[in-house]
């Protein structure tokens, strides 16, 4: 079970990485054509200089290498998953699946891109290599059609496959373009040409980005209608809630895109814009956090049953709203003996008996964790007044939280239960998850405390948004859907909302740090601290809301 769970997770996690690397390949080629205009060889051509093209090729190569590695690993992992789940390995049957064939084709195509990117690294003007890469992109994009939800459907199969492929293509243009912008910005220190090309890239990308968003929406809406079908389906199933989350994240990314576009327009009209170099690069970094989360959500969506297929186990909007409604936190817990007594019935397949003690135990754990987090956030908010020096010690709360989790997460294991520490940690997937979550909370506390109290450790501050982003992505991609779809989903709904907020925590804090660290000469001085501090405060506010969700959390009885 543990191996199977691990293989399952890696399989779906690789799905997210594959979408990112796919976006890097396809997005880079569209970038080369539209922004760099590598095919424009006229004397008065508007194409980018060779150093800028080289920057693009490096990212193209990175994307191709990642896709090849991820696709190859995914094929192997899927085999491991099959063997672990079935108890044997029907090799021939596996090799005959559409998934294996389409996956293998993608692997070879990405190897082709590695070769072509290698040629272009040496000679960025190699027209034949660019042409071949453009031709190879067609089967790469089309092969995706056999790796999506639509392929398993019985109705509108072809239309759904085509629609999803266009949707993926539009996403790749956006994500790949943003990655190219990011890479171009960080190349400007070594490449003067990159520095000069920066405003042109921003203004040209505005129209390309808008086109891709238009395509995303026009293909995403019919797909959502087909797979979700109702309001309850949107808010009462894992699939629907992830689509809603994806839309919310996209709105956040669009805000950053709008700010970038505005700065580009200002530069075009006036020939200068302080924001173009003062804020835009950092907005793009924050946008990247959000877009990466969007791609992981998209990968998770592909492993959720569409809402229209689980009408019998769909939660109603009011049931979901009830999960989020405030109540007095539970501050008393059932005894350890009461909890253990109900466990055999709770996990039984036949003669399953819901355990009240297990539900109350879980409520207590979540509610107390929420109180820790809410308290920390209140102190953190106070720190923004700049009046109380002691408030910078707020991350100590994470250390306290980790100690609480260590004792409470798994009642059947050491130190409360009879199963030993190592035996439980490495013998049970769920316990392993909890141990790591505990370690993560402890690490966050120690690192952030050090970062906020030791001036010489300021680089450590970036660990907080990075870990928050990972935590958010994990919450968003961590499905609970198992045997009891409805009750499992009600739990998942709170975790999905927290995952979305964790991405806000990450991008807000990142923006705050980056804007504060940017050279004064690059900032529009009047609003320098405002934007960063507002982003930082929003980040803490998002964490505060997570704390509230946890504090009011109630687990359905199942």
């Amino acid at each position, binding site marked *: 079970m543990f191996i199977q769970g691990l293989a399952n997770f890696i399989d779906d996690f690789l799905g997210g990485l594959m979408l990112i690397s796919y976006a890097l390949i396809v997005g880079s080629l569209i970038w080369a054509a539209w922004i760099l205009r590598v095919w424009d060889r006229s004397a008065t051509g508007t194409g980018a200089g060779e150093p800028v093209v080289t920057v693009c090729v490096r990212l193209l190569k990175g994307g191709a290498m990642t896709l090849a590695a991820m696709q190859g690993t995914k094929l192997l992992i899927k085999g491991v998953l099959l063997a672990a789940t079935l108890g044997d390995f029907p090799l021939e049957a596996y090799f005959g699946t559409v998934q294996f064939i389409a996956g293998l084709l993608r692997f070879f195509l990405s190897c082709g891109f590695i070769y072509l990117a290698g040629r272009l690294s040496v000679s960025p003007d190699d027209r034949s290599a660019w042409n071949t890469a453009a031709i190879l992109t067609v089967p790469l994009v089309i092969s995706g059609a056999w790796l999506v939800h639509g392929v398993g459907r019985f109705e509108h199969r072809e239309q759904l496959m085509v629609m999803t492929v266009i949707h993926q293509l539009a996403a790749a243009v956006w994500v790949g373009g943003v990655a190219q912008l990011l890479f171009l910005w960080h190349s400007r220190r070594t490449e003067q040409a990159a520095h000069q090309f920066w405003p042109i890239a921003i203004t040209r990308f505005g129209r390309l980005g808008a086109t891709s968003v238009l395509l995303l929406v026009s293909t995403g809406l019919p797909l959502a209608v087909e797979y979700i079908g109702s309001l309850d389906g949107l808010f009462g199933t894992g699939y629907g809630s992830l689509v809603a989350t994806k839309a919310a994240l996209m709105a956040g990314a669009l805000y950053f895109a709008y700010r970038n576009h505005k700065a580009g327009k200002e530069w075009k009209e006036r020939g200068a814009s302080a924001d173009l170099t003062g804020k835009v690069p950092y907005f793009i970094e924050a946008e990247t956090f959000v877009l990466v989360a969007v791609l992981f959500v998209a990968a998770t969506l592909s492993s959720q049953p569409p809402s229209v297929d689980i009408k019998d186990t769909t939660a109603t909007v009011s049931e979901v709203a009830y999960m989020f409604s405030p109540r007095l936190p539970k501050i008393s817990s059932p005894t350890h003996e009461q909890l253990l007594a109900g466990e055999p019935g709770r996990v039984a397949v036949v003669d399953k008996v819901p355990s009240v003690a297990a539900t109350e135990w879980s409520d207590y754990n979540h509610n107390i964790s929420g109180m820790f987090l809410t308290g920390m956030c209140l102190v953190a908010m106070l720190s923004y007044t700049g009046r109380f020096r002691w408030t910078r010690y707020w991350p100590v709360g994470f250390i306290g939280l980790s100690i609480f989790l260590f004792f409470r997460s798994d009642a059947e294991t050491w130190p409360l239960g009879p199963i030993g520490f190592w035996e439980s940690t490495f013998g049970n997937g769920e316990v392993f998850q909890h141990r790591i979550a505990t370690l993560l909370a402890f690490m966050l506390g120690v690192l952030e405390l050090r970062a906020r109290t030791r001036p010489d450790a300021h680089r450590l501050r970036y660990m907080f948004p990075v870990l928050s982003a990972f935590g958010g992505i994990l919450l968003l991609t961590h499905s609970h859907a*198992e045997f009891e779809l409805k009750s499992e989903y009600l739990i998942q709904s709170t975790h999905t909302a927290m995952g979305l907020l964790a991405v806000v925590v990450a991008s807000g804090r990142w923006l705050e740090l980056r804007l504060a660290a940017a050279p004064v000469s690059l900032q529009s001085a009047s609003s320098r601290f405002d934007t960063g501090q507002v982003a930082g405060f929003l980040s803490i506010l998002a964490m505060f809301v997570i704390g509230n969700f946890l504090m009011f959390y109630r687990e359905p009885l199942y």
Partner: protein
Amino acid sequence: MFPRAIKQSGRLMPAVALCLLALTPMAWSHAVVTESSLTSEPVKPNHATKVVLFFNSGVELALSRVFLVSKGDVFHPVHIAKGKKAGEMLVDIPPLEPGDYALKYKVFAADGHFTENVIRFRVDNP
């Protein structure tokens, strides 16, 4: 600043990677049963029965397994076959005494995702 921060972060990446591997979903669902003959034709005691399951997605039969689970969570593999329509699976249930049972299926959907799920049913006295 940015590359240095990344370099600094890189030292802690093994721990982060461990966190990623740790948060393991126990099951990912896609191919779900939308209908089953168990609701319209309950299993009769001591009679072999052919149960029909209708999935929402294409299923790779050679890569799928179904188990009959009896009281005490004892698992017995059962024979499965392809139905007449797409997404239809036939499950051979042996003669059963009255009582509570479940069918646990592990199926490989056409889109490459594994699904594990349970369908509980009761065999009543005639």
